[in-house]
């Protein structure tokens, strides 16, 4: 069963196809211009796909990267706007989010810091009780402590309300244990689509003497050769290797960088 299904082409995004189950947390990763925002806009229904389809079961909330809000609105006005514009509205949920992150209700949007604007848009999005929440770079304007806290609170919302979360990010080092699904985009194509734990268990880096061939079976993601050494990142599923080769698992960040280097 899936709650998000897409098979989309739009501008640079070509034939990107995936399905996400309800209650899943998906990190969309890719360089600038790789098509993340276009894809999120199509999923949110803000842009029609040029071909293919995108469908989401239930209510969707989408927070774009530039966080559009009326600059002259006070924070309290933004909440009232949310109450009037949404058929389903949970004032308490929105209000609690603002209280939790200590956002003053009387300030105008234009006087808020980037981090506070993030909190207001998240409060607005959560207040609409979405089944699927789409966030474009939600953590970009937050300090490291706030990033951790926001993620923790979002995951609690996912757990308590069965919400499905899709977010784009540059900071791959922060998605371990947070996202159970990784979508890696490059130049509008989907390079990797997989369960983050399984990806970590599949990819192994083998290092040994200079060799023109991988020491193990399996698809080679990236091979590097120095003067006397070679290393192969292989989707081997954890196959062991004989001396003098050594094997180790890689981090999500190394895995992402290797796939991007290979595609470049």
């Amino acid at each position, binding site marked *: 069963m899936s709650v998000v299904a897409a098979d989309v082409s739009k501008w640079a995004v070509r034939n990107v196809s995936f399905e996400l189950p309800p*209650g*899943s*947390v998906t990190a969309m990763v890719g360089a600038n211009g790789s098509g993340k925002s276009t894809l999120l806009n199509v999923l949110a229904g803000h842009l029609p796909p040029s071909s293919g389809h995108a469908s989401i079961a239930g209510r969707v909330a989408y927070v774009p990267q530039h966080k559009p809000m009326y600059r002259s609105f006070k924070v309290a006005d933004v909440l009232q706007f949310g109450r009037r514009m949404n058929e389903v509205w949970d004032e308490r949920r929105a209000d609690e989010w603002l209280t939790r992150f200590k956002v003053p209700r009387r300030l105008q949007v234009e006087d808020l810091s980037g981090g506070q604007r993030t909190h207001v848009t998240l409060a607005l999005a959560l207040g609409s009780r979405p089944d699927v929440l789409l966030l474009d770079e939600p953590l970009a304007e937050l300090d490291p402590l706030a990033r*951790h*806290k926001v*993620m*923790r609170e979002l*995951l*609690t919302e*996912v*757990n*308590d309300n069965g919400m499905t979360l899709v977010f784009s990010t540059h900071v791959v*080092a*922060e*998605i*371990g*244990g*947070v*996202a*159970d699904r990784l979508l890696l985009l490059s130049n509008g194509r989907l390079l990797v689509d997989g369960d*983050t*734990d399984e990806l*970590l*268990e599949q990819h192994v880096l083998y290092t040994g003497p200079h060799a023109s061939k991988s020491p193990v079976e399996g698809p080679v993601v990236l091979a590097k050769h120095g003067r006397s050494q070679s290393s192969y990142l292989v989707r081997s599923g954890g196959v062991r290797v004989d001396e003098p080769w050594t094997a*180790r*698992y*890689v*981090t*999500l*960040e*190394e895995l992402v960088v290797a796939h991007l280097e290979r595609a470049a």
Partner: protein
Amino acid sequence: MVEFHVDRGSGYPPYLQIGQQVREALRLGWLQPGDRLPTVRDVVATSGVNANTVLKAYRELELAGLVEARQGSGTFVKASLGSAAPEDLDPLREGLAKWVAEARSAGLEDEDIYALVREVLSGGAQ
């Protein structure tokens, strides 16, 4: 109550990190048979990991026969790990702490210490 710490940047899958921490708590006697593991919601709220990650960790521990899920009341420790009694562990811990302090003052880093411990455990370099 045990609290889990997940290293997000690690190449070791987060659900296995949680499993390892439970096993360590069992070995050190911090968790005993009958103790309840933190609820999934508590772990999500305190450690900031995905609920699916916690469920997966608990399921793996259940398959290993270490814990059991009781419908509606949580996940409980079923078996203990390690054979040492807590009163035997204490003097050993003290001795080890003294040794680690010595190693550090000799300039060893954590990785050097692990390598040395592994080497001695495997009976190498005799």
